[in-house]
């Protein structure tokens, strides 16, 4: 089975990769997905299909990944360990692959207490390094039990790491554990401490992880200081230092300052050795995503300009 275009891009790293977070949905139909997808389609190489993000139930990762694939965009199907045991997780991966979904991302998942149904039972039958390894087994043609799949299909497996959560040195080793288990790309958690990203990148270049997996830091497009305050207070694993919030709240035009902050973050990230691309979460839903990839000449729509000026 030939590699997907996205897998080829990850392997060749012929230009900075751009992925984006696809919004979760609560009903609708294929047309609803298509409309949302047009916002991203020209500017990104793939979109993340989340799996009950922040422990809130939404239309399933499998259904959304299949829809996006059918609509011609590469889905990165996230699978979290929180909601399903090893049987269900494997069934989802194999089932989605039958519809052409071949890129997967294994995550631990926010705890149920972060969501709107904190009474739910948390599963965590697997952890993310184990899930990566099991997906790797599926890619080789067998389930965890050893039972063979009737049809083997190459999967592109990735994971997430958080360089901004302690302990810093453990994050570098954990990235290595995930890559040793079969991850070929790592998307990083959103963070506002550039020095932590720098030391993480230095570490994963030194231990060879960045050479074996495409590392993609994440940025989030927001408009207000309130959005940053919300993340600081409510979103597990995200820390927004007070001076960053102050920069936005004291700006004459907070929305413009928020954009400039993100552009600086992406420029900084792409300047670091070992960074293969960037993952963008767009909470603005305006023209900022297009503006960002255009300003920096990255992603499928504008990369040729970068090549031309380089």
């Amino acid at each position: 089975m030939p590699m997907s275009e996205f897998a080829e891009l990850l392997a060749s790293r012929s230009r900075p990769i751009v992925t984006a977070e696809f919004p979760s949905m609560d009903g609708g139909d294929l047309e609803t997905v298509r409309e949302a997808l047009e916002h991203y389609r020209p500017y990104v190489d793939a979109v993340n299909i989340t799996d009950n993000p922040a422990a809130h139930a939404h239309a399933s990762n499998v259904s959304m990944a299949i829809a996006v694939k059918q609509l011609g965009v590469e889905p990165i199907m996230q699978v979290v360990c929180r909601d399903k045991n090893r049987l269900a997780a494997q069934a989802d991966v194999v089932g989605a692959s039958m519809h052409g979904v071949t890129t997967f991302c294994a995550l631990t998942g926010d705890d149920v207490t972060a969501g709107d149904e904190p009474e739910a039972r948390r599963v965590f039958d697997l952890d993310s390094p184990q899930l990566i390894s099991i997906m790797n087994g599926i890619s080789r043609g067998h389930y965890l039990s050893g039972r063979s799949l009737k049809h083997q299909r190459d999967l592109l497996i990735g994971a997430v790491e958080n360089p901004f959560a302690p302990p810093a040195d453990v994050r570098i080793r954990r990235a290595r554990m995930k890559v040793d288990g079969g991850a070929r790309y790592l998307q990083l958690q959103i963070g506002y401490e550039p020095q932590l990203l720098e030391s993480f990148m230095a570490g994963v270049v030194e231990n060879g992880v960045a050479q074996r997996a495409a590392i993609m830091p994440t940025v989030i497009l927001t408009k207000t200081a309130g959005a940053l305050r919300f993340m600081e207070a409510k979103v597990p694993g995200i820390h927004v230092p007070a001076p960053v919030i102050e920069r936005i709240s004291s700006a004459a035009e907070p929305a413009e300052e928020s954009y400039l902050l993100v552009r600086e973050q992406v420029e900084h990230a792409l300047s670091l050795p070992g960074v293969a691309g960037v993952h963008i979460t767009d909470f603005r839903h305006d023209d900022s995503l297009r503006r960002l990839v255009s300003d920096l000449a990255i992603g499928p729509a504008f990369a040729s300009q970068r090549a031309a000026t380089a």
Partner: protein
Amino acid sequence: MLRKLLPVLEHVVKGPVWDCQMCGQCVLHSTGMTCPMTCPKTLRNGPCGGVRTDGHCEVKPEMRCVWVKAHHRAETMPLLPKSWREEITHMRPPVNNELKGDSSWLNLANGRDRQTPEGWLADADV
């Protein structure tokens, strides 16, 4: 008789010291003598991305992250053999839920705690 007595004895010894959850496949030696089953997400292979900046748990803010503790102890705890300190970075396989409630001492002796499903890929195999 031994099968019934040993879990009771093990829980009496390990419960008060390590808050043992009787998973029946003890990995304490490889996790800085810190039980990963006391992590609210029961993670066996390192801290999740939710660890707070003060090193405390995403789920229980009053508690220090089990894995922050484990890594710290693996590095600093006296008398821990070097091989045990290094094992913390090894991938531990998924929990065998059939062993829950058993004595891990017995499962260590008879090797059941090291049996993994046929399709489990060892690190070296990747």
